[in-house]
């Protein structure tokens, strides 16, 4: 009887091993998620924070939030949706703490600009300028438009965007149109 119960129920050592295994599995999953979605998280953080050092902190905060939420994630949505939800929510809180989030174009740090392998310096300068203009315009948008634009640029489907934002798919199309128009206005492009 005792033997039977000892084989059915895990011993204290067995439980500790189980906890350790679970923890290791979470850590592996966490590392994989960061590996897969790390660049997207960094880009998203760019839309909420222009200063490189602070942005790095924001990325870490997002990673921390993912770690905390991971044990409760039961696959109700895709992993990508899960990551974007957390990242946007953290971004929102960050934007509130760091008001005003929008900085003028001149203050965007040169160190953030990647090195372009193309030899022509003028083309490179133009590319950097255009990118900085786009980032600055995205940052100047209201939060709801900004979120739509970022998710659209990251290539999420309408269904995924609806899941992240908490709105209907039909509503996504309408909002995306509005957000696009707002971005064009911010960039000074004629519709």
């Amino acid at each position, binding site marked *: 009887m005792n033997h039977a119960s000892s084989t059915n129920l895990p011993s204290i050592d067995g439980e500790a091993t189980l906890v350790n295994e679970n923890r290791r599995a979470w850590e592996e999953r966490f590392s994989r998620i960061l*590996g897969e979605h790390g660049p997207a998280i960094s880009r998203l953080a760019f839309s909420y924070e222009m200063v490189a050092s602070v942005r*790095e902190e924001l*990325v870490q905060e997002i990673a921390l*939030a993912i770690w905390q939420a991971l044990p409760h994630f039961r696959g109700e949505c895709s992993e990508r949706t*899960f990551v974007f939800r957390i990242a946007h*929510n*953290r971004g929102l809180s960050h934007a509130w703490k760091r008001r005003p989030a929008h900085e003028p174009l001149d203050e965007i740090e040169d160190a953030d600009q990647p090195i372009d392998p193309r030899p022509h310096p003028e083309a490179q300068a133009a590319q950097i300028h255009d*990118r900085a203009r*786009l980032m600055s315009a995205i940052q100047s948008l209201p939060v709801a438009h900004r979120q739509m634009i970022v998710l659209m640029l990251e290539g999420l489907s309408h269904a995924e965007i609806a899941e992240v*934002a908490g709105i209907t798919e039909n509503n996504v199309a309408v909002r995306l149109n509005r957000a696009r128009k707002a971005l064009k206005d911010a960039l000074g492009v004629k519709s």
Partner: protein
Amino acid sequence: VIWPVTERSEPLIFSEKRLEQAMIEDRELDIWREQWSSVAVPPAVGRDQLQQIQKKIRRQQLGFVLGNVVAAIGFFGTMIFVVMIPRLEPQPLAKSTALGISILLTMVFSYRLWVQRGTYRAEAQSTRAFVELWRKRVIARLRLLQLGMYVAPAWIVFCAVLMAINRAAIAPDVDAHPMYWLGALIAALLALPVNLYWVFWYRRRKRAELKEVKKILQEINE
């Protein structure tokens, strides 16, 4: 196959214009996507960054445990103090003070639990749900501050009434240690404006936060 003949709803020229417009928009989107994806990003998440994150996680877990331990010690310590006072000093003043503290503690904890109902949820939700939760949390904090604004002066009035009722019992001690009692009185009177100043400052901050959260919520709901 015979295709059904449908009446064209708009002249051909408009359809072509729309097509052209759609093509321009797609090209525009492609350019934006190209610019967006070329934004400088760190090579995924490096080992150093992962270590920093793990360090933060450990610090946060430690903070969480320490916070709970301190809160439990504070609560049980005060309760033991409240139970012990009347036993050590069976005077009406000590009994009333113990009763006052226990009422205050129970009231503050109950109110805290009540105003924070529905705000214990993780943030892995949709943006709309998150912002709504954020609004609830700010409102709960504002209500707690409101309670603090009433409780602080009420506590001083309670102490003053208690002392007035028991003045005969206190008088010999006041005569024996006048400086001690004067110091305690000055400290109590100074604590009130300091406390109220902090409450007003924090409330102003929270109100600004609530305004911002409502604005975001309005943007989301539009």
